[in-house]
């Protein structure tokens, strides 16, 4: 079976701070193509981020072992689970894989600990190898993700719009600054569930690529809008060297943390063959258009905000993950409404920001789930989103107005 995914690649680059301090890169990443029953292929993307504190002094080994054991665990599951059985895969992603990877990782670090020379003093403490782990599974008809920790997964559409698909849920108000969930925690397997997702590709015709990264990438970007822009553009890189050099630049000018990125592009479906008659008709129409007898209206470019809105409403589980990091932007909009004009002037640069601006102006017609989340966000920011009743009385500027249904 041919793969639905192209050019999977992964790259980890040592952080500028670690390079300066003479420490190893504590990130690891991989891509793998696994073959299951009947020759079915499954692509795997993995990134792992070693904690790096003095307690986790072998976390570079921990992250490498996490990626290796994840690949083996997924291969085991693939050997007994047909890719068509999405229900079974959903269960694996939510719990079964978590238990298998965690068990394998603990065995692997125990073996690594035992063979270290000179023998380390005292018994093994898993935190010594502590790391996060993010996995993306790419099947011919679906994709899924799971793992734990502060990795990010971004989906990029055919139009180039990028949105967060998965990020670490808040660890609560008491969570300390740079804290994250980890494979070394006893409750680790339970932390995988909230990160597990499975999506049939048929339901996401606009999906172009998935970009998985460790937290060093996002923290190096000046804002989430920059991070999403980065993910939207990085998929066009063709050379592994460009990616590696780019990641080195990211850590040098950004957080100084190790950085890892793994991504894959979706195979574009082959263009449909036109029946002969239709082709002749099209040729005729084209000829007429050329001689000016038929004026074909030019299709307007897709509205990035509407594309963003549709993507969120098609999968409401992503709404909160995408909107919550925009609280600061919302506060800025509330304090300085003139910022909305900047966002709306170039919505393609930050579609989600432009969506917030439209919600402020009442010129958005969101699905109920999106509207509910936007209202909550505005309420938290001390403001109020214009009510639906008010919206109908406020005509947005022409360039800012979403197209009415059927107008295209």
């Amino acid at each position, binding site marked *: 079976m041919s793969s639905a995914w192209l050019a999977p690649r992964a790259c980890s680059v040592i952080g500028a701070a670690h390079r300066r301090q003479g420490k190893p890169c504590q990130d690891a990443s991989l891509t793998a193509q696994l073959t299951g029953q009947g020759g079915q292929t499954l692509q795997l993307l993995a990134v792992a981020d070693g*904690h790096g504190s003095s307690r986790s002094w072998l976390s570079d080994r921990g992250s490498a072992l996490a990626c290796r054991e994840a690949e083996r665990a997924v291969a085991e599951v693939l050997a007994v689970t047909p890719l068509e059985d999405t229900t079974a895969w959903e269960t694996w992603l939510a719990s079964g894989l978590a238990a298998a990877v965690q068990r394998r990782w603990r065995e692997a670090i125990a073996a690594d600990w035992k063979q270290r020379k000179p023998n380390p003093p005292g018994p093994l403490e898993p935190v010594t190898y502590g790391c996060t782990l993010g996995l993306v599974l790419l099947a011919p008809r679906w994709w899924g993700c799971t793992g734990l920790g502060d990795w990010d997964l971004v989906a990029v559409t055919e139009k180039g719009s990028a949105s967060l698909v998965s990020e670490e849920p808040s660890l609560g108000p008491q969570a300390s600054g740079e804290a994250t969930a980890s494979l070394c925690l006893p409750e680790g397997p339970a932390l995988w569930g909230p990160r597990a997702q499975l999506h049939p590709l048929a339901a996401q015709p606009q999906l172009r690529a998935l970009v998985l990264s460790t*937290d060093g990438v996002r923290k190096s970007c000046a804002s989430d809008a920059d991070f999403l822009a980065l993910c939207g553009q990085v998929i066009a890189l063709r050379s592994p060297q460009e990616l590696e050099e780019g990641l080195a630049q990211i850590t040098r000018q950004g957080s100084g943390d190790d950085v890892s990125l793994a991504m894959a592009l979706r195979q574009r479906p082959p263009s449909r063959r036109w029946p002969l008659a239709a082709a002749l008709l099209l040729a005729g129409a084209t000829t007429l258009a050329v001689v000016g007898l038929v004026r074909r209206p030019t299709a307007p470019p897709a509205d990035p905000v509407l594309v963003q809105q549709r993507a969120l409403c098609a999968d409401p589980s992503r709404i909160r993950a995408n909107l919550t990091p925009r609280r600061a932007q919302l506060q800025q909009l509330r304090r300085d409404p003139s910022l909305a004009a900047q966002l709306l002037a170039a919505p393609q640069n930050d579609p989600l920001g432009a969506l917030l601006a439209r919600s402020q102006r009442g010129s958005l017609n969101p699905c109920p789930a999106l509207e509910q989340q936007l209202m909550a966000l505005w309420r938290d920011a001390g403001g109020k989103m214009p009510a639906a009743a008010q919206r109908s009385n406020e005509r947005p500027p022409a360039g800012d107005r979403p197209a009415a249904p059927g107008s295209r």
Partner: protein
Amino acid sequence: MPFPNVRLSNRPLHFIYLCDCSGSMAAQGKMQALNQAIRQSLPGMAEVARENPEARVLVRALRFADRADWHVQEPTPVQQLQWRDLEAGGITAMGEALERLAGVLQSPPMEERALPPVLVLISDGQPTDDFETGLATLMRQPWAQKAVRLAIALGHDADLEVLQQFIGPEPPGGGRSPRRPLQASNATSLARYIQWASTAVVGAASMPASRVQEQGDSNVNIPLPDLPPTLLDPTDDVGPLVW
């Protein structure tokens, strides 16, 4: 194809002094010692910032006496900071100071990507206003909860209980710990603590190491470095007890 041209940024590290400027600070040269200690610590702090370019160290100072007010209001790159002397006089509006502090630890103005801030409370006495309300207001801010909170007690009249509340739960066991108020009994030990907070702690807070969120460790935001030696350590000789 060139690598995507997006805005990259190092991460701001906010370091904020909260300085008691009540009348008692004028006695026995405490205020003079505090000004001198902070001023002398700045070159070392700037050096740590230079060594950790991934963190942008920004300093502010809040003074409190009859009222709380900003002494250094704008987050100032440590390399550009010129320390103006604080002056003593009045009572101890520590609660109001914490409320003022809470105002700047909201998001915004706090940046999404900021590192956990470092807050250093320095006092020689007891609050004369509603400390509890001020602390509650402060601790409602997620950035205050994530902050590295340190306290330095000047002399034996400082209210250690109040300072401990600011820091958070006392660590189990006895002994010296940065999670207890640091007791400075003379200008030398004060200078050492200020130097430690502005260099060793800033260095640790600048490190981009992530760490495990374990149950029951909510008050250990970054691994804090060892404390400097003081009079409390019998092997040290740092000068006479004067406060």
